[in-house]
């Protein structure tokens, strides 16, 4: 019995060791926290190790084009992976949407943001103590473009535009609001919530019908073509464990 257990244990160990590999992943900055957890679970479940690099999708694009050794890209949009695909820098047929981002209007101050976003219709922002509204640069970040969609759809450009300040990424936009240098800001729901609860301040979770869907695509890059760990990770991202973590952090699937 003991012997058999030991043998079973050894074979498991051996089995894992035989196929344990490493995969280098470029991860969009907004997906940092969930990905760290997914990588941990992935390592426990498969024995493969995922080395994560976090950053702006545009920067990853430039690096991948110039030979960066990333095997997998988890982008902040669906455009960049599509573009890489067209440029034949990815393995055909491996692209899929791993998460759909959700936009929130957020303030560090309690009660400033109502659950309909009516605060954006304020006649005078100054009177309500609002001097700056942060968004991510619409040219660089899909969340920024989505925020512009919402502002336009609500027809509040005239009042809102002069108050806008732009972060170069979602991380920076979040920083502007969390240090209260901007009283209001459009951030990723994933940055301010856990298990469907806003962690601090006040927020309006913008209905998804008000902006172009924030599809975030994953793709296998040429460097990962023959990497078993890379293939396993892409499969794992579509499994239940990963999906549970992804939704926990405020993403839709």
């Amino acid at each position, binding site marked *: 019995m003991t012997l058999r257990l030991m043998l079973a244990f050894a074979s498991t160990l051996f089995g894992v060791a035989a196929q344990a590999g490493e995969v280098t992943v470029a991860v969009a900055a907004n997906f940092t926290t969930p990905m760290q957890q997914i990588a941990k679970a992935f390592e426990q479940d498969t024995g493969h190790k995922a080395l994560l690099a976090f950053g*702006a999708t*545009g*920067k990853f*694009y*430039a690096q991948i084009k110039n030979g960066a050794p990333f095997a997998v890209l988890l982008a902040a949009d669906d455009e960049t992976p599509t573009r890489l695909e067209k440029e034949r820098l990815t393995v055909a047929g491996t692209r899929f949407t791993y998460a759909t981002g959700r936009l929130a209007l957020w303030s560090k101050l309690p009660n400033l943001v109502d659950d309909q976003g009516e605060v954006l219709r304020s006649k005078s922002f100054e009177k309500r103590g609002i*001097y*700056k509204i*942060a968004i991510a*640069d619409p*040219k*660089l970040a899909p969340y920024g473009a989505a925020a512009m969609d919402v502002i336009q759809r609500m027809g509040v450009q005239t009042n809102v535009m002069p108050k*806008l*300040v*732009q*972060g*170069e990424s979602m991380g*920076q936009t979040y*920083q*502007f609001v969390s*240090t*209260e*240098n*901007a009283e209001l800001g459009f951030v990723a729901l994933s940055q301010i919530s856990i298990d469907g609860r806003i962690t601090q301040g006040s927020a309006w979770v913008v209905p998804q019908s008000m902006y172009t869907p924030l599809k975030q695509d994953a793709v296998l890059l040429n460097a990962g073509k023959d990497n078993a760990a890379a293939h396993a990770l892409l499969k794992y991202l579509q499994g239940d464990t990963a999906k549970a973590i992804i939704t926990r952090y405020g993403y839709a699937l």
Partner: protein
Amino acid sequence: MGMNLSAEDFQTITLTLQLASVTTMLLLLLATPVAWWLAHTRSVWRAPVASLVALPLVLPPTVLGFYLLVALGPNGPIGQFTQWAGWGTLAFSFWGLVLGSVVYSLPFAVQPLVNAFEAMGSRPMEVAATLRASKWDAFFSVAVPLAKPGFVMAAMLSFAHTVGEFGVVLMIGGNIPDKTRVVSTQIYGHVEAMEYSQAHGLAGVMLVFSFVVLLGLSWFNHRSTSHSNTRHQKAGA
């Protein structure tokens, strides 16, 4: 390489030059007394103050920018002061960038001045004092002319370093056209948005500018040292 400079690119160039000019002027005013003190004091505070002034040389701009962002915010010490003074908060404004640039380029203004004042020695001021020149008079009519190469170098380095500033602006600027969007952040935006040809245009301008400034400094240095050498030779002869 095509020069695809748009109207917005030119706007960032103008703003950058304004920022660098204002910063350089403020820095010369601020750095002169600090450098004078550092060059002459025997206080135990000399080493700590010199290290504090040199900090921006070694700290990553993101650290400076992050501290500034927190300090400028409504709950930070600078933010509390500016609100009390009725100026609101300074982040995302031209004057916020000026403040950040002054901190960031401080060592580049102070160090050449300290060197110049130290090289001058205490003789000229002592001679001026025996001629009954007041301290201020002696400073402006003796020390400043003697330290002129130091002032020129401090001004050129501060200006060039501010033009090349990126991390701090990125952290506290907010990328507002005509207010806080400078050349370096505009280049970054072009690169991130994959507009490589526009990025090339502006980056080229930046490269040429930086080279010309360094070349100018090099020439100026060479000229002023060879001048003082000939002066010494004449005096020796």
